[in-house]
């Protein structure tokens, strides 16, 4: 799907592993071997953190919680019950996963800094609890009779090999997450959660899944870390520096891509460890300073990490020229598709969406006031009205972002009030948003595919649907492979339209798709919308550009101060005195009737 295929990435991982093993074999100093092992361990922690925070944007300051739980589970199992770490570590993974579910369910309801601060609290609480329980310092017993059975080796390189295996496994899992609809959904959520919901993606489900995978990985590597160190203290397992490293390493190396943590660990861990070894006596705490300085520099100079800075520099040289549409400016208007490809052959003229007595208030202000209207299948229905009339609020209620205070909304027989946005999308309603937040580093096709996930089982099918949608909007040519970051406003709007069309909705809610466009672009998009409608998609559109709306819409509903004040064919609605008064003011009408000389 993307620039380098899956095979290419596997090759790169294999090459990396081979080179690392080779270097490891050549190194004989046991201290350097330890450092190499630590690099791998912290890289894995970073990969784990990345799966949640890098991909979804929910920044976690508390990954030490899972790391520590994994470490202590293995330790307690070993010390108290003589269970080998080969079993103890997977046990730790289980504990970590369970903890993540318990933590995730309530905490994901929070956003922004509240989420970050809560995540901070968990490992701190665990630290105190474990200290209190008497686990100040626990040493793993030496098992001289069967060392390998208890993951104890004489040659430190064995640990390195083990750590490498774990890292590679995590990298592969991470790779698959990235390239799958799981990863794409997370990216969509990170980019614009409401738009993702409206496209049928269930944010809570994907975030929980990401947390579970992330926690499992962190717990596994926590267990391994304890095995390597042989001494476990609450500070080293749950401490703030652990959570800080979990965050700094991927942010430094490159956020949102699994190579990032590897780069970050490869740079920072040897640096910190070596400085600590050389200068640790005179400058205790030099490690913390290194990490602190690293993260400060990164936020100033390369906020997304080294990997992206370097990559962006290369890609900007190559792909600066976004393939412009084949005919300058004009988008080829696609021929009509066979009717069963899009929309559904519902009886035209029947009410597809019916609003009955819908009201929604904010504080004392009635944003939507007892609105009853019905959208007939196969029509283009314009919602107009002066600024602040409640049009966008109405859309948000239909879409599920807001719950109506009173009334009901029937869509092809199903009641919509009370349903979540992604469910509503599943039922066949698509929506575009005024501000298009694209995935800037991905292609147009990748941006659109996210919309096709709902209702398609396989990625191949999703890609087909996405291409079909791009065809509808005339971007199925070389534009489909263009990087979204370089698109014009018109292309962005069309891409957004394609994303909404990808799951083949029966009804499309367009929110100011035409706003601010120049005449030619406007004409093209109007044409495309008309074509989409002819193919069977019912369109409801909020727009201020009256000229365009007059040509486009079959029917107008006019809102003012939340109330429906007029409804009918455009030509008669705009002449309606009530409407003129709403837009221009009562005194305008009075003047018109009785012009003063």
């Amino acid at each position, binding site marked *: 799907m993307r620039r380098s295929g899956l095979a290419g990435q596997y090759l790169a991982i294999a090459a990396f592993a081979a080179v690392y093993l080779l270097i490891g074999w050549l190194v004989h100093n046991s201290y350097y071997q330890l450092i190499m092992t630590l690099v791998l361990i912290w890289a894995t922690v970073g990969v784990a953190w990345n799966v949640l925070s890098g991909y979804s944007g929910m920044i976690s300051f508390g990954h030490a919680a899972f790391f520590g739980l994994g470490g202590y589970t293995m330790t307690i199992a070993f010390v108290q019950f003589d269970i080998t770490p080969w079993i103890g570590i997977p046990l730790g993974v289980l504990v970590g996963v369970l903890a993540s579910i318990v933590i995730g369910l309530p905490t994901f309801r929070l956003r922004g800094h509240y989420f970050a601060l809560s995540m901070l609290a968990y490992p701190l609480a665990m630290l105190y609890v474990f200290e209190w329980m008497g686990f100040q310092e626990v040493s793993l017993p030496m098992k001289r009779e069967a060392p390998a059975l208890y993951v104890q080796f004489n040659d430190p390189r064995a640990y390195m090999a083990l750590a490498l295996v774990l890292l590679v496994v995590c990298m592969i899992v991470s790779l698959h997450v990235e390239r799958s609809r799981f990863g794409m959904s997370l990216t969509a959520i990170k980019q614009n959660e409401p738009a993702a919901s409206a496209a049928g993606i269930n944010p809570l489900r994907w975030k929980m899944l990401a947390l579970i995978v992330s926690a499992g990985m962190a717990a596994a590597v926590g267990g391994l870390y304890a095995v390597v160190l042989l001494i476990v203290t609450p500070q080293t397992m749950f401490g703030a520096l652990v959570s*800080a490293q979990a965050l700094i390493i991927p942010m430094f190396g490159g956020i949102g891509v699994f190579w990032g943590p590897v780069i970050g660990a490869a740079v920072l861990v040897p640096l910190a460890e070596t400085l600590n070894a050389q200068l640790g006596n005179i400058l205790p705490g030099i490690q913390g300073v290194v*990490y602190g300085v690293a993260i400060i520099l990164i936020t100033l100079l390369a906020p997304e990490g080294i990997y992206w800075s370097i990559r962006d520099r290369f890609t900007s040289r190559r792909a600066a020229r976004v393939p412009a549409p084949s005919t300058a400016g004009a988008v080829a208007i696609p021929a009509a598709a066979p009717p069963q490809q899009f929309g559904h052959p519902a009886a035209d003229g029947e009410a597809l969406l019916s609003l009955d007595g819908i009201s929604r208030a904010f504080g004392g202000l009635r944003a939507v006031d007892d609105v009853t209207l019905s959208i007939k299948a196969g029509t283009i229905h314009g919602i107009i009205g002066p600024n602040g009339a409640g049009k966008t609020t109405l859309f948000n209620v239909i879409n599920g972002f807001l719950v109506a205070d009173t009334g009901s909304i029937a869509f092809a027989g199903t009641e919509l009030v009370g349903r979540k946005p992604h469910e509503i999308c599943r039922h066949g309603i698509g929506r575009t948003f005024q501000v298009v937040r694209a995935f800037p580093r991905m292609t147009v096709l990748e941006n659109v595919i996210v919309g096709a996930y709902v209702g398609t089982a396989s990625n191949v099918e999703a890609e087909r649907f996405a291409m079909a949608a791009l065809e509808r909007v005339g971007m199925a040519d070389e534009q489909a492979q263009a990087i979204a970051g370089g698109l014009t406003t018109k292309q962005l709007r069309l891409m957004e339209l394609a994303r909404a069309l990808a799951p083949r909705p029966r009804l499309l809610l367009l929110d100011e798709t035409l706003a601010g466009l120049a005449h030619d672009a406007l004409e093209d998009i109007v044409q495309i919308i008309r074509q989409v409608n002819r193919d069977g998609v019912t369109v409801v559109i909020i727009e201020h550009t009256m000229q365009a709306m007059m040509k486009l819409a079959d029917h107008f509903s006019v809102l003012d101060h939340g109330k429906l004040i007029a409804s009918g064919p455009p030509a008669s609605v705009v002449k309606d005195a009530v409407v003129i008064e709403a837009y221009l003011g009562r005194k305008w009408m009075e003047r018109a009737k009785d012009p003063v000389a």
Partner: protein
Amino acid sequence: METLKWPIIDFFQALSTGLLVGGTYGLMCVGLGIIFGVMRVVNFAQGDFMMVGMYVAYYLVTGFGILAFLGPYAGPVVGAALAGPIVFALGWLLHRFLISRVTGARVVSAEAEGHYMQIIMTLGVALVLSNGGLILFGSQPLSVQTPLSRESWEIGPIFLNQARSVAFVLAAAFAAGLYLFLTRSDLGKTMRAAADNPIAAAYMGINVDRLHRFAFGLGVGITAIAGGLIASSQSFQPYIGFDFVIVMYAGVVLGGMGSILGAFWGGLTIGLVQQMSTLILPYQLQNTAIFVVFLLIIFFRPQGMFGRVSDRP
């Protein structure tokens, strides 16, 4: 009746200690409250600035003995007070050269994106300050000795540690002074306006960037004073900042993240919770009680006691 006597005394002892401790916590939280209220910056390094304040007080009074001439009673107080301006300057410089690069009036109105960069940069600052402190000051726990540290006043069966009591009074005094500043002075009102609505504040002719710089310095300076006051009652080492980050955030969130003065009451309550939790929990878990309270607030009443609903997540 006899069997009730001890628990009741314990209860009131915990209550009194909680109030005394809470006063300084309250002052600490107000510092963070200013920064969060005015700038909407989540400052991870707040506790470490407090730590710097403690060391400043220590070196002024004991280490370099600059204030020794003031005697053992006044010295620590003045030392704590002077920690304020010194840390203010440090904060001012840090904001000027680092933090303003990722914050500022434009970012305040932006999405959570901007927030993450702020938090993360302050995390870096926290690491540098705490570990830098370890390098400069060593890991030996210190405290500012005053004859009051070991003396207590007795009210019936209740003991009030003198150093803590003095610290409480001073903290309350500083907080009161700050209250007057915020409500009566022009600069104070300007800060409240910028916290309330930064865009409108810019329209009023207020230079919001420069105001943020001042607010940051003031916020860390106030917390440093609180630190200096605590320094007489407990020992500290360079990593102590992190212990207090949650205390401060719990206090600010409890008070309401938009309310600068609510933060004082939030901090006071947290002090009470911490001390009173020792009645039912083992001593080592007193901070866990704070976390529980913190999480409860975030989940059930995120706007805190005095905050605005618009600050809810």
